């Protein structure tokens, strides 16, 4: 399915979010407000996006940008769903109930960014040891064990 077609279908479903649907670098992206993220993802799943490709986060300073990559076998398309989570209170509903695949992915985001997924069945650190302090992929992560690379360029 082409991206434009996808945009039409998404716009038909969410007329108010249509302006937030952007096409960049050949991929469709919809930015959803935090409070509607779970219902939007559930609707998209019903639309045919049966695979949750990945869940990740990007540290955007004041906020964390949560990025969901959806993939559909029936529509033969992929798209992003993004939402902003405030850094001061990083809480977002878990989508484990929609795709079990989110289980480990959300644990990873929790581990590396400290975003808390509410309703997650087993939210623990996954990659780092349980007693690790801090969330290393945050831009402000401090660790005296890191040796900074001298800047050559």
């Amino acid at each position, binding site marked *: 399915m082409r991206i434009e077609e996808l945009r039409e279908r998404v716009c038909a479903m969410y007329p108010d979010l249509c302006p937030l649907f952007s096409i*960049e*670098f*050949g*991929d469709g992206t919809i930015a959803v407000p935090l409070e509607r993220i779970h219902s939007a993802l559930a609707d998209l799943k019903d639309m045919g996006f*049966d*695979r*949750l*490709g*990945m869940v*990740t986060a*990007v*540290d955007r300073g004041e906020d964390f940008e949560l*990025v969901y*990559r959806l*993939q559909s*076998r029936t529509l*033969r398309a*992929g798209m*992003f769903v993004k939402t902003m989570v405030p850094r001061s209170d990083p809480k977002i509903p878990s989508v484990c109930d929609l*795709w*079990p*695949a989110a*289980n*480990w*992915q959300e644990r*990873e985001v929790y581990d*590396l960014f400290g975003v808390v997924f509410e309703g997650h069945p087993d939210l623990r*650190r*996954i*990659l*780092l*040891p349980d007693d690790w302090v801090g969330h*290393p*992929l945050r831009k402000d992560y401090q660790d005296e064990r890191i040796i*900074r*690379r001298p800047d050559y*360029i």
Partner: protein
Amino acid sequence: MATEELTLNIGPSHPSTHGVCRLVVRLDGEIVTHVEPVIGHLHRGIEKIAENRTYLQVVPLTDRLDYVGSMYANWAYCRAVERLAGIRVPERAEYIRVIVCELQRIASHMMGIGSSAADTGATSAFLYAFDQREKVIDLFEALCGARLTYNYVRPGGVAFELPDGWIEQCRAFIEQHPSAMLTIDEFFFGNAIARVRLKGIGVLDADTAVAWGVSGPAARGSGVDWDLRRDDPYSVYPRFDFDVPLGSNGDCFDRARIRLWECIESCRIIEQALDQIEPGPIMAEGLPRLLAPRPGDAYDHIESARGSLGVYVVSDGSPRPYRMKVRSPAFCNLAVLPEIAVGYTLSDLLVILGSLDPVFGEVDR
């Protein structure tokens, strides 16, 4: 009969965890009642390191992700960067990428089949498979000088031109490879003990596979007809004629044997690519010495030997990626292990783990 459960810790260094995975297993007799994979023993923070490297300097890091199939991570990363920076890759480079990645698929699957064999105790079959892998590695060594970490696919093309005589060497390899595969098929998959060890073990049904995001041979063994080379075609794959082998039962036997057929299909693709390849440049022209794409984010995925390997790159306009995330298929495939291993015996558990073919460089990143 009610018996006390036994908690057994497997790993992180165990002969058949294929790396540094730890499994905390609860056993009732020899039956697994609960299994929890503990990963992260090889978490090296590649995603964080990438934030302090230039776009070109990240390529060697991606080699170390999936160390059984380094070319894939190279390629997936380069595709994401090319998408972000709007680079058009010359056709010859695309062909070379397809050829090396299909060779890499063979090399990687040899490891997958071999370790499935080793898990069931057929060490010799592992050595036969590895012999084929060594032949592929010879080809790579002729190409880029490295046996394992190639750093060959670069943003904009590939690093080196094919050396003289390489195409003939490659043809010689793909000519003997299918028959070698059939020998392994007969020797290992035809064996009665291997059949009873693998058939009906670790059954993963198609719906569970999709819901858990399982991809690659692990999903195709369950009959999930999903192969990015065909369903989300990239590079020059639409020009080739090839089949996607599918399993039906979703057990260890199907998962392992599909890899074998995929190798034979890969030979077909390589043969066609070698026929079609034409002289030309191997690197995009006019590339700046220091890539600094405009702000934005791009994701691209390819079908690696383990499934759909995606790389997500965020740029803030500086010469370094603002964020790089690898959607690693092995990570998602491994997550399904607790679902499919319960109810089988301890011996089966390790076979099931092996049939998912995780590579911990990629799982932990």
